[in-house]
């Protein structure tokens, strides 16, 4: 799969070139974290999502997956295991997932959780285009976790590798440790900052017209208001399968917006889920399996 050494190095260079935050002081200030995720009965969600919409044969896979999701949420957190399956045969390289994720998680410039890599091979007229969406692999052996000096990132019992932005000191060790380049650093930038300069207060609406940029991100069900370079500005950021959406009985933003229905999501602990059906097929692969990371994002080729 297309993950070259050069890319990893490049991402390292980019990080090095960024605004360096002195680690030591913050490490001591924030201290080592111990993450005891909520588990057991308090994490059971008896959602009535789709209760009044009867399942029908031939329904959109989005509906089937959302039903699977509601079922999984009715179990305690430690009994579900979220996985993603991406059918490259159905991916059309539209980047809807990429942008939906940017919108859902209020990602600033330079931060992306789910790029789609497009590769061309062959020669005219025998050509191939391959589309590879690349979310965080939510590895069962995540190399990003042990390198974190403050334990701000950890593997949850439901399979998701989480980051606590309040704990993260922005050292970016995890960015280099990830062989998939799945993490990016938030430099605290904004998309519209330099647009319509000089317009403020004049006939042209100017910066007043971008109220969406000021809204806090809902990641992890928490309120992340970036004002004044607060978290997650300055932190490492990555895909978390839209945990906050799962809690509300909704699929991750990339999955629900996939126009080719190439992205599947669900609980691999549920033998009846759609993802469980899919990941046992012979044409399923994972990325960089030799790295021993045991990724939980699967590709159908």
């Amino acid at each position, binding site marked *: 799969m297309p993950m070259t050494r050069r890319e990893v190095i490049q991402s390292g260079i980019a990080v090095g070139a960024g605004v360096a935050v002195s680690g030591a002081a913050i490490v001591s200030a924030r201290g080592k974290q111990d993450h005891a995720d*909520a588990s057991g009965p308090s994490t059971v969600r008896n959602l009535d999502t789709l209760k009044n919409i009867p399942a029908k044969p031939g329904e959109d896979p989005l509906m089937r997956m959302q039903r699977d999701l509601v079922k999984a949420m009715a179990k305690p957190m430690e009994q579900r295991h979220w996985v993603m399956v991406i059918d490259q045969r159905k991916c059309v390289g539209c*980047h809807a997932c990429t942008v*939906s994720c940017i*919108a859902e998680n209020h990602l600033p410039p330079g931060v992306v959780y789910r790029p789609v890599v497009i590769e061309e091979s062959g020669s005219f007229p025998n050509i191939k285009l391959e589309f590879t969406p690349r979310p965080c692999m939510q590895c069962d052996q995540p190399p990003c976790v042990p390198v974190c000096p403050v334990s701000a990132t950890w593997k949850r019992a439901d399979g998701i590798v989480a980051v606590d932005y309040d704990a993260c000191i922005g050292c970016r060790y995890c960015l280099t440790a990830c062989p998939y380049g799945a993490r990016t650093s938030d430099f605290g930038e904004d998309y519209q900052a330099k647009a319509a300069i000089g317009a403020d207060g004049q006939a042209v609406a100017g910066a007043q017209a971008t109220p969406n940029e000021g809204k806090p991100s809902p990641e992890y069900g928490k309120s992340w208001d970036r004002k004044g370079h607060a978290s997650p500005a300055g932190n490492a950021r990555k895909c978390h399968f839209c945990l906050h959406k799962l809690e509300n009985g909704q699929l991750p933003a990339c999955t629900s*917006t996939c126009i080719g229905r190439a992205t599947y999501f669900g609980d691999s602990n549920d033998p009846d889920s759609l993802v469980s059906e899919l990941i046992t097929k012979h044409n399923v692969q994972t990325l960089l399996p030799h790295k021993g990371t045991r990724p939980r994002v699967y590709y159908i080729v």
Partner: protein
Amino acid sequence: MSNDNDQALKTRRGFLAGGALLGTGLFASILGASEDRQVATGAAILDTTRPDSPDPRVDGGNVILTACLQCNTGCGIKCRMQDGVVTKIDGNPYAPWTLLPHLPYATKAADALPVDGGICPKGQAGLQSAYDPYRIRKVLKRAGRRGENKWVSIPFTQAIQEISDGGKLFADVPGEADRVVQGLKSLMTLTDGKLAKAMAGAVKKIWDEKDKAKKAALVAAFKSEFAAHLDKLIDPDHPDLGPKNNQIVVNWGRLKDGRGDFYKRFAAALGTTNAHGHTTVCQGSLYFTCKAISEQYIGGKFSDGQKFYWQADTENSAFILFVGANLFEANYGPPNRTVRLTGNLVSGKTRIAVADPRFSKLASKAWKWLPLKPGTDTAVAMAIMRWMFDEKRIDAKFLGCANKAAAKAAGEDSWSNATWLVAIKDGRPGKLVRAADIGLIAAEKRKVVDKETKEEKEYDEKFFVVMVGGKPTAVDPNDDKAAVTGDLFVDATLADGTKVKSGLQILRDNASERSVAEWAAIADVKADDVIAVARELTSHGKQAAVDIHRGPAQHTNGFYNVLSWMSINMLLGNFDAKGGMIKATTYDTGGKGKWFDLKAHPGKVASFGVSSIRHGVDYEKTTLFSGYPAKRNWYPLSSDMYQEVIPSIGDAYPYPCKVLFTYMGAPTYALPAGHTNIEILCDLEKVPLYVANDILVGSSSMYADYIFPDTSFLERWEFQGSHPSIPNRVQPVRQPVIPPIPEDVTVFGQAHPANLEAMILGFAEYLKLPGFGDHGFAEGKPLKHQDDLMLRGVGNLAFGEKADGSASLPDADEAEIGMFLQARRFLPKSVFDPERWKATVGAAMWPKLVYLLNRGGRFEDHEKGHKGERHAHPYAALLNLYQEKTAGTIHSGTGKPNPGVATWLPVRGYDGKEPEALRQGHDLALVTHRTITQTKSRTIADPWLSPVMPDNGILVHPDDAARLGLAAGQLVKVVSATNPGGEWPLGAGRTKAMVGRVVTTQTVRPGVISFALGFGHWSTGAGDLVVDGHLIKGEPRRQAGVHANAAMWIDPALKNTCMVDPVGGSVSFYDTQVKLVPVALAT
């Protein structure tokens, strides 16, 4: 490795680089106090003291369903808001665009809330178009030279008065101190309905008279009859140019129903016949060829052709050949068609082939790719048809059906005229033979309702003729009782000596002019590939189709390319069949004879006269006829020729224009050779007054004298309509979601957001236009606010298609009404006032209206789209494989008649010659493509889309790059014979070079280069503006990339327009040849 345009995503650096262009900064909301509501999920996820997210994720009080307009696919969308600010857009699960099958319409609104459908990246980023910092809030008036981009903001009422009254409007602008501008008032000379009707009738008589001397006499008679009113005409010697009102030209880009009703009512009230759209820059020849195919035989004439087209029933086809269609990235469009295809491709239910000079993302999923040379569509279609005829793999049963009764008997809904006999005169197919003319049967007196007068009149029905077992037989096309099945291939001489052929015979003769190999050689595709595709097409019965889009249409031979491909569909007999050709079906918003007649326009003055783009009439009929070539082309079969609107004004042909209105259009950017339009717009003599309506200072509105602000797609009403590949009857409704960015103004005494409707209402109030005000629709039925039209249109939808109201929607329950009100709590009263809304539609309609708006429109349930193996909403009418009407038209440039059947024509200029001189020294064929992240002129406003593809570059095959010594990444200028400088002249002395970086890729055919549309902007937030003395800098991000439309050929004979399809009206997008000139890297 070489790469695609999306190369930025090869590494994450693309995002970082994109980010590096932008700085930091945070903006406060302008939208009032926070109404944060806690959702108790955070604690379960993250064990910290940080507060839980205030994002009310699944909460009906913060969700409004509407329709996207980031492109014209118009997907149903769900806008989720935080404190009245849209922060996330998803697909509306009630709409068949985003979920397959979509949710049953009866699903409770609350139950549908957690279900999101899929939409494309542009749709996701749509909120950034609405919240674009370059949006304008007040009327801007030009304060410098046209194109200089200097403005002052002025009160709305001042703008209305100045444009209406005229005068020395720009006395403060250097050089214009004494320039007197004619206002609307002075141009509205003809306002007497009775007089207008009489004049229109007299003009019709002039046009219907064929004899030159008698025509001249009729003109003289006109002048004496209307002697007292000649001052109302543009030119009394040419009364058929119509009244001076026609010198007001009303033009639009993307205009949908509702707003369309407003804008067209405005044009009608001004008394101008000139209300022109933009269809031909998109795929006009696809629409107008299908219009010609769909002409019906009514009252002895062919009329009522529909401006529409068919697509493959994507979700049910077994095999589809896509031609010049790029539906994973464009072409109405990504969400609705992709979801109907990818699952079937993987399951093996559907197989596709793609014909396109560029290996598109669609082609990457195809079983076979035919990389044809641009402009050779007909040759490939002919090769396929030749093979089908030779192998007898045509639907003989369908083609034999000569009338409605035969179709019914054969289990078909539609029928063709393939078997009807055509008279061959001097070797040329001309008119269809009439049975009464050859003595086969006596003419029959029949009655028909005249469409103009609405009166019943008598005519002679002469019937057509088919051969049945070699015997000439009369046929009535619309007879649903007596089936007539004709012989397919006829080449005979009738008893009276008339040489005749069946239409199908003529088509076969054309296809047989060359062998399959020879046809394939013209297109430079492999004959074996063509045959393999033809075999697949003919191996799945009616579940196979040719699905085309703008690729075949946007050529000088566009009409015949489209007709050739559509002829294959007729040979396949796949119309109205499940998996075959399908048309769009919508719920009616007009309401005539049902709930509320939205088209009623009391006091409307009948407009008449030659249109400013010379459409809908034969040149030869008019008093302007003076032999060939005509100064510019005439279009009897087409309309909405965008490339003619401004250039015709430039030539003052057929007459000079005084006031130009544009709405949501960017002709200068979007048209091939659009730069010719800039020069004309900058000319104060040719365009004395230009009024634009736009959400920002755009690439065309920047040349205007006044720009009225507008509400974006998240702030306004519209009825989006449908697309052919949606099998169900639908009508998505676009409704206000967020408070308007533009200021509120006062029209007819009410607060109203400053938008298109306000501008129209403002003029209507000031000029006392008929069809507006207290009795705009009828006595006591006002049109004084956008609500008056839009809410009643929604009411019509809710009332349904049955006159007795039995198809009305149910009432929304209390919970749904509560949700509806809660979600609109941030909208100002100028937009949403529940009491006003209730009063407008009445208490009985109100809960039905809420029910409909809570679902984002009206959508039929999925299973109702088909009945067994047939479409539930079939076309069910005559298909003209042979077009008598087309064959009766004459090319205004050459004086030669146009063919009435699919015919191979090479690329030609208006002079009828191949543009060999323009090709000399320019050997790269220039085409364009759409990328998923951009919609031509408007989506560059959305910064979320930039990281995916920051700029476009020029796709060059590595062999060409090597031959020309070009390296990947190198900057080159695009140069053609008609733009040797390779520059956009932007007016006011400014230019922009057409320079882009070379992207080497195997995905273009050698010899062809392509660039993605939507980049290389000079306005739309890319250029600097001065407003009220303040400089507002453009964003460099929006200037990135190259827009090479100005390299596209200017027609050598027309001189100020791109090359055109003289029949279908399309612009030529894909015929130009260019060269690439290396440019030193600017430092």
